[in-house]
């Protein structure tokens, strides 16, 4: 994976596969503190202790029963490559939280990539799932909540092209305001 936003997309896919209704995505970045943290929390079916222990092993998981495949091992590698780590907490029927920490200024940290495009694809591609995306920088906070969008839309499909365009623009402008997701 070339970008962290692709890892993010992949981890969200796990939540969706775990039948989540709500996925809470939080990205916190602080260059001065050399910190970049991506958290994905869902209310899906979760994992038991035994499965959780094997979750980073790409070869133990079996295709038919898997909730996680290569995605997490790749994310772990991407984090550890730049002095970070990945922590997972999960409980059956309660959901899963994946927290990935990176050293923001580390030379080997993958670039963030296009967050607006990534999140728009995820939101539109999974119209039955709700997403709350929060991005925090020292400059401020941006929040996108699909529950509010859907309520506002009053029956109009969230995948309507005009709505898709609005979502993408909203994220891009929101991030710009707080200087979020930018790699120079």
């Amino acid at each position: 994976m070339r970008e962290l936003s692709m890892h993010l997309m992949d981890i969200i896919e796990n939540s969706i596969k775990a039948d989540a209704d709500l996925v809470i995505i939080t990205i916190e970045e602080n260059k001065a503190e050399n910190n970049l943290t991506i958290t994905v929390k869902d209310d899906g079916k979760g994992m038991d202790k035994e499965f959780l222990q094997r979750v980073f092993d790409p070869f133990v998981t079996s295709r038919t029963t898997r909730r996680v495949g290569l995605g997490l091992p790749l994310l772990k590698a991407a984090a550890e490559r730049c002095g970070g780590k990945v922590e997972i907490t999960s409980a059956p029927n309660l959901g899963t939280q994946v927290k990935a920490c990176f050293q923001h200024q580390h030379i080997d940290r993958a670039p963030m990539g296009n967050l607006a495009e990534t999140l728009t694809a995820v939101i539109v591609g999974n119209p039955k799932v709700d997403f709350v995306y929060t991005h925090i920088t020292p400059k401020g906070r941006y929040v996108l909540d699909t529950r509010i969008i859907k309520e506002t839309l009053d029956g109009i499909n969230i995948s309507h092209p005009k709505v898709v365009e609005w979502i993408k623009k909203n994220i891009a402008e929101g991030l710009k305001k707080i200087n979020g997701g930018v790699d120079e």
Partner: protein
Amino acid sequence: MIKSLEELKRIRDEVKKATKVREGMKGTRIVVGMGTCGISAGAREVMSAVLDELRKRDIDDVVVTQTGCIGFCKYEPLMDVIKPGEEKVTYVNLTPEKARRVVVEHIVNGRVVKEYIVPNL
């Protein structure tokens, strides 16, 4: 987000008011493979291209969704085009440009783009 919700409301009212010119696309679905394999092969760009092409052509009754790995990792990025009453067509090894062509040729003009499919898949 809150501030531009007004804009979203305007979009909503606009869409509600608009009379449908075209009904032919109803029930058509595009499903993009977004497993680990798909994403790393460029599925996000493919999906963005599809959404953009639909928007440009003002096609609002085609549903674009995503799915996980379907086991054809070496053919990623791939997507299914499902039209009501027709057999599902799986397009493989896509690029954003190829995906745009599928929208134009298959979705709009109703012709399967044979170069991009794998027989017997």
